[in-house]
């Protein structure tokens, strides 16, 4: 019987070409909720190192109005 692990591999570790940058806000949108919150790494499967980079990039994108700080859930 083959052993199937439930552990996911980090997306950014798999694809070294995919870099984390605040200017690429379209990729960053996948790692925030509809309300604008950063999704934790244990949910998305991103490793701790890339989660730190993601958090920084999301905060930079928020600063320059590429991503929202918060979205009112009543507007969904």
């Amino acid at each position, binding site marked *: 019987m083959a052993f199937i692990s439930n552990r996911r591999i980090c997306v950014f570790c798999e694809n070294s070409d995919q870099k984390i940058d*605040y*200017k690429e806000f379209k990729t960053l949108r996948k790692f925030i909720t509809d309300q604008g919150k950063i999704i934790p790494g244990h949910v998305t499967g991103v490793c701790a190192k890339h989660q730190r980079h993601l958090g920084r990039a999301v905060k*930079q994108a*928020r*600063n*320059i*109005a*590429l*991503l*929202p*700080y918060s979205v009112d859930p009543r507007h969904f």
Partner: protein
Amino acid sequence: MNYYETLYIVHPALDAGRLKDIITGVYDSLKKMGGNPLAVEFWGKRKLAYFIDKQKYGTYVLVQYNGEGKCTSNFAVELEHNPNILAYLTTSIEKDKVIEQKEDIETQIAGKTREAERSEARRGKEVAVVETDIKESDAPEIKKGDKSPEDESEQTDSSTEERDADSTEIKAETTESEDKENDSTEDETPEESSDSEADKDVDTPEENSDAQVTDEESSAEIAESESDEENTTSEESTEKESETKQEKAEDEPAAVSEEEK
């Protein structure tokens, strides 16, 4: 010598000419501050994630340069005091991330403006196409409407004829029904007239108690007469009752005259 990039948002209300002036002004100020601009990228007009200075849209411009650390702080002060710049973000980058600028600022602005114009034109065309579709959908109806008056007149003629025919039929039916009703009324009228005469005769002497008694009697008789009318079997009895009423009516004025005396 470090490499930096600054992304700043220009006010969206500015035209292409003034936008170019502002971008060149920022470029020159960066040079004055000791920076060496390497590339300028014009992103164009974009929707902001949130309102900045009550503005929903903004024009994004990216500048990459190298220089000492002081130049960034002086450049930040310069951007801070520029009223046409809504927001800015300066980050340090590696040398590999520097963009190769292929086009000048003017051509980039012109290209973005052309793209914007094309997109607007497409939207306008889509809107025009939608409007034409709507008009075409309305047009056949209008053509039908143009044709329709004649057709309608013909239809109206035919319909009027039909209506006339129907009306004649209805009139015939109504005349028949009226005749029937008249016959029935004629059948009913004599008895009613007799009753009405009796009532008139009875109602005249209202002051007398005898008259009131006669009224009660007459009302009872009327009810009886009505029931008889419904049954239509004892017609002879009603005639007799009417005769009695007439007799009573003739007697009552005489009694009144005696009392007056």
